[in-house]
């Protein structure tokens, strides 16, 4: 988990990317960026987030965003990048989402009631 700085302009974005690059380029990275303190996010910051998520997904990992401030949410929505990330209310939930991938995902999308879903034969 990494907390993003209050102002994410071009200079800060470069610095932040240099900071997280070892983790982004690691094997199957599972990263959470905490945006709770972000007050200013500009196009360079958004570009940096996209670069991070592209690198992470290339390596079969995932990048999730946690507790975005109102200002960060506004910019993410304005630039249409909110739909590219999984966004969680807090960092704990975001971190937990990595561990509970399959069962939770199946529960949420199953059209059957829970008991019926358990009785379904498992695919080979």
């Amino acid at each position, binding site marked *: *988990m*990494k907390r993003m700085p209050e102002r994410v*302009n071009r200079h800060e974005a470069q610095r932040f990317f240099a900071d997280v690059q*070892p*983790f982004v*380029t*690691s*094997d199957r990275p599972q990263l959470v960026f905490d945006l709770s303190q972000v007050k*200013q996010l*500009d*196009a*360079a910051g958004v570009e940096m987030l996209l670069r991070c998520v592209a690198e992470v997904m*290339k*390596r*079969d990992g995932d990048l999730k965003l946690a507790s975005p401030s*109102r*200002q960060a*949410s*506004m*910019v993410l*929505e*304005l*630039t*249409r990048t909110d739909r590219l990330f999984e966004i969680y209310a807090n960092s704990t939930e975001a971190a937990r989402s990595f561990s509970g991938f399959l069962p939770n995902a199946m529960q949420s999308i199953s059209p059957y009631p829970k008991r019926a879903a358990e009785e379904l034969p498992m695919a080979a």
Partner: protein
Amino acid sequence: MRYCAAVAAMDVRAIVLLGLAGEGNDRATPVLDSSENFAGTPLAVLPVLGQPVLHRVVDRLKCAGVDSVSVLSAARAPLVDDCYPPGVKWQNVADTQLWRASEEEFDHLAHDGAELVLVVRLGAYAEVEIDPLLQFHLDQRNHITQVVDADGPLDFFVLSGSRRNDAAFLLRNKLGKVRVQSRSFVTSGYVNRLQTLADLRRLTLDSLLQKTSIQPQGEQFRPGVWVGQAAKIEGDVRLVAPCYIGPFTRVRSGSLITRGSSLEHHSVVDCGTVVEASTLLPFSYLGAGLDLVHSIVGSNRIASLKHAAELEMEDKTLVSVVPASSFWRTVRDASRLVSFVPHQMFAKLFGERKIKETRPCPESGESGFDPRAVARPVTQERQPLTPSVVTRMREYGNQ
């Protein structure tokens, strides 16, 4: 001079107060310290479908036969040039002096022979029926008549010119108390209290849906779509009714303007941007490929109604201000063109060369296909998971 049902010519004048907060706040609070402003400008001065609310209120008063309108403004921020309505007496005063100045103005009007004086604080946009209101005031023999609607009292009063003590009491108490209680006039007209930016958006939408008497300043291009003079809208722009495109606005290719959006004069929407249920204030620039939803943009700021937050944008590629002067607009466009042409030439020259280099040579008989490239793992840049990397990751996670 107006004629009322009492078959007498009456001298009716009006004082419009601007720049102090209203019902929900302490009445001495300047608008800038309340929610009734955007980027330092009172909401009543911001344009709604081409004209500020202040203009519309003044026009309504004049249409109803009010002889003169005095505007007392306590707004500290510099107001935009087009906020001064024509044919009114405008007076800037300090916010601490507004009530004193209004009292003096009332005395002045009464001394000049005004029989009835309307005192309106903006504030609320209220389509009060002026003739029935004045008739009610005369019939009830009130000293002061306050207008109320279904949601409560409004800062809209009729004062008899001869009742200076009652007027002084009312104004000294910041429109909060009257000396002699009297029956209020209940209006059935449209009222919007304009206390927040959401109220401003609601007023825009209600006007587009013709729930108010506000008429968009422009020509109805299609049912529900109004376009002002000299607006430039490119061919593949989608305009979904109801919406308003103000004069001298520029909407570039691939944009979508929908769900009651309003682009005020001289605003620019760049290519591929969606504007949904939002307002662009005059001289605003909205960058390319953006998605503006339930927001108000102006003066380098964006206010989101959904998130109830306001953000000053430093990045000029997202939101910026268009120069108010046509000279500086031309200079800006020219400088952009000058920087654009070499960039395109450079991209074209080197872009094509790159394609030529990768083209297979038919004479060599080789297909140019390298099977090792397919077999190459995608994660070439992947670092090996050495103990030092794992240790670093753990350290990082513990931060």
